[in-house]
């Protein structure tokens, strides 16, 4: 019986564990399940409210943001990327809607959306949600192709990606949240419900679109270019498969169309390039590239961003063969 004390201790621990598991709340229901905390100890999903120091009796404000802390935590190097002071407190501690002295009067809106952040010489330059996302889509080569041509339109649809409607949220809960007094666990349940209610957007089927296009309106020195329309879309889709940032923000089925068919609603039959880009300079629109340049800027702009090595930009015959009847260059 040399191990009696040890055994007794073990048994006591086991009992305590069982008691913990079997503990029921006073109303007979299971107590709130201990949340699966993230590595850092934060709640995995949260609702970020526009916290204001001012009294807000009517509880009006911007829709809160459902934030998956766990996911974002795994994507950054350390906590200081977002918690730039080194103190892991909620953003709204210092950055309120109106701004306060603690946050250097940087408002919550700026703290979340600023992209023109001043570089801090000695120390960490803070990041906002938008600045970090912008950096990602302009640096990752699978994103940078399209996004060197199209920048996200900062419209209501764009806002709604983060500022979603939170189902089941009562007015009181919102009022509490805006005042910064909502129970974090309650917030987490609201966030979970919102995420569960999200609907996945399915991209339009590339096989139902034009398979191959013949770009021949400018045939002169070179033969037409046979553009494999479907292959380009499939290839881009495949490259960003599993990219959650893309999945969240690509919130319309024809989002890929908008890179080339820009400045037009994403229709099944978008207008042709030549509808706007004349082969000659348009006096009314001095900044609009003529057709030849429009093609090249779109093709090469995207290839550049995606770091497509070939065909080289100066290799004309890589895309359209030299016309035999013409004299060589």
């Amino acid at each position, binding site marked *: 019986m040399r191990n009696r004390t040890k055994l007794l201790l073990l048994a006591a621990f086991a009992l305590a564990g069982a008691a913990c598991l079997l503990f029921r709340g006073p109303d007979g229901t299971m107590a709130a399940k201990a949340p699966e905390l993230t590595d850092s100890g934060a709640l995995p999903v949260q609702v970020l409210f526009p916290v204001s120091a001012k009294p807000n009796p009517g509880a009006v404000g911007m829709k809160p943001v459902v934030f998956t802390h766990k996911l974002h935590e795994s994507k950054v190097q350390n906590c200081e990327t977002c918690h730039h002071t080194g103190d892991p407190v909620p953003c709204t501690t210092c950055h309120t809607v109106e701004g306060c002295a603690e946050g250097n009067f940087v408002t919550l809106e700026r703290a979340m959306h600023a*992209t*023109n952040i001043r*570089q801090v010489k000695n120390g960490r330059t803070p990041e906002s949600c938008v600045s970090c996302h912008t950096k990602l889509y302009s640096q990752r080569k699978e994103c940078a192709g399209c996004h060197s041509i199209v*920048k996200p339109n900062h419209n209501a649809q764009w806002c709604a990606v983060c500022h979603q409607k939170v189902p089941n949220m009562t007015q009181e809960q919102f009022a509490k949240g805006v005042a910064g007094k909502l129970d974090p666990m309650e917030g987490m349940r609201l966030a979970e419900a919102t995420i569960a209610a999200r609907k996945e957007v399915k991209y339009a089927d590339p096989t139902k679109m034009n398979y191959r296009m013949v770009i021949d309106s400018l045939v002169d020195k070179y033969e037409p270019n046979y553009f494999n329309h479907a292959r380009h879309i499939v290839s881009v889709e495949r490259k960003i498969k599993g990219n959650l940032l893309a999945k969240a923000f690509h919130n319309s089925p024809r989002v890929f169309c908008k890179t080339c068919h820009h400045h037009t609603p994403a229709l099944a039959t978008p207008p042709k390039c030549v509808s706007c880009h004349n082969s000659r*300079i348009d006096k009314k629109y*001095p*900044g609009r*590239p*003529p057709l*030849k*340049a*429009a093609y*090249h*800027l779109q093709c*090469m702009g995207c290839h550049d961003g995606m770091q497509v090595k070939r065909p080289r*930009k*100066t290799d*004309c015959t890589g895309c359209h063969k030299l016309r035999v009847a013409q004299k060589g*260059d």
Partner: protein
Amino acid sequence: MNRRKFLTFLGSASVASAIATPSTAKASHTFPYYPESYGVLHDTTRCVGCRQCEEACNEVNHLPKPDKPFSDLSVCNTKRRTSATQWTVVNKYNMNGKDVFRKLQCFHCQDPACASACFAKCFQKQPDGSVTYDGTQCVGCRYCMIACPFYAPGFEYNEAWDPLVKKCTFCKPRLDKKQIPGCVEACPMEALTFGRRTDLIKVARARINNNPGKYLDYIYGEHDAGGTAWMVLAPANPKAAPIPPDNPVLAGPEFKQLGLDTHLGNQPMGELTYGALGIVPMIVAFWPVLFGGAYAMTKRREAMHKQALEQTEREAREDIALAVDAAVRKIQETEGEGAADRCRKAMAEALKARETAAKHGEEA
């Protein structure tokens, strides 16, 4: 006031007016800035160095074919200059570790230095924006080549008879036919945007604003050298913080990597020379009158002096003649005809001897 004092005064007055002329000429010099003039915006972030512009330039201007074909892109690696047979060249520059291509040609300054330096008035800024050259009066001094801050004009050194200055004409003959310049038409990337200069500045600003971090916030040629019709946009340094807008001092080191000088200043180059060269017509017009007048005055005084001298001489001679005549007549009355004749003869001989003596004295 005597003559010497008067001339001293006149001379110093003319020198003073000549010194004072530059400042007045500068103030009165206004160059017609044509608001409707055309320009070209060269976006170096778009240029891929394909040399299509060079080929098109060669073709539309009927220039001699170069030794290396235009498809040989390795020539971009050497820092080439424009010449009489190559009005535009594309060079490769290394900007912060990245290859950037830039097209070189005449910038078609708003107030061209070449025009201000040319005393034969061969260069002219046209209302359409081009700076044209008319070689009919060219003397081949190549002052324009020295004056040009962009080293654009080239000289036909190989031409033995009547060598001329050659440079980009902004395809003036094509512009007159409502066509755009050959290089712009050939550019596959719209790295060259043709349009009204005022529009192009707006286009350039829009590009800078819509693509934060892509461009240096400086339009080269908007104000440089007093403004140029051809303007250049350069890529920003991705590693450095963005520079404040329109700061030639901070943009300078960046543009220097592209072979462009931002220290040309905002003042039109012409203003530096028009003042000094403005005196030339004044000297040409005023100095001949001044010195001609002084010369005429001296000449007239001399003539008057000579006339007066001759008058006294004549009078003296007449006096002597009258006195001799009276003396002879007296002798005739008292001594008779023979004595008078002898006397007249002696008198005439004496006068003659005197005159010859005077003449000899003058000669000696």
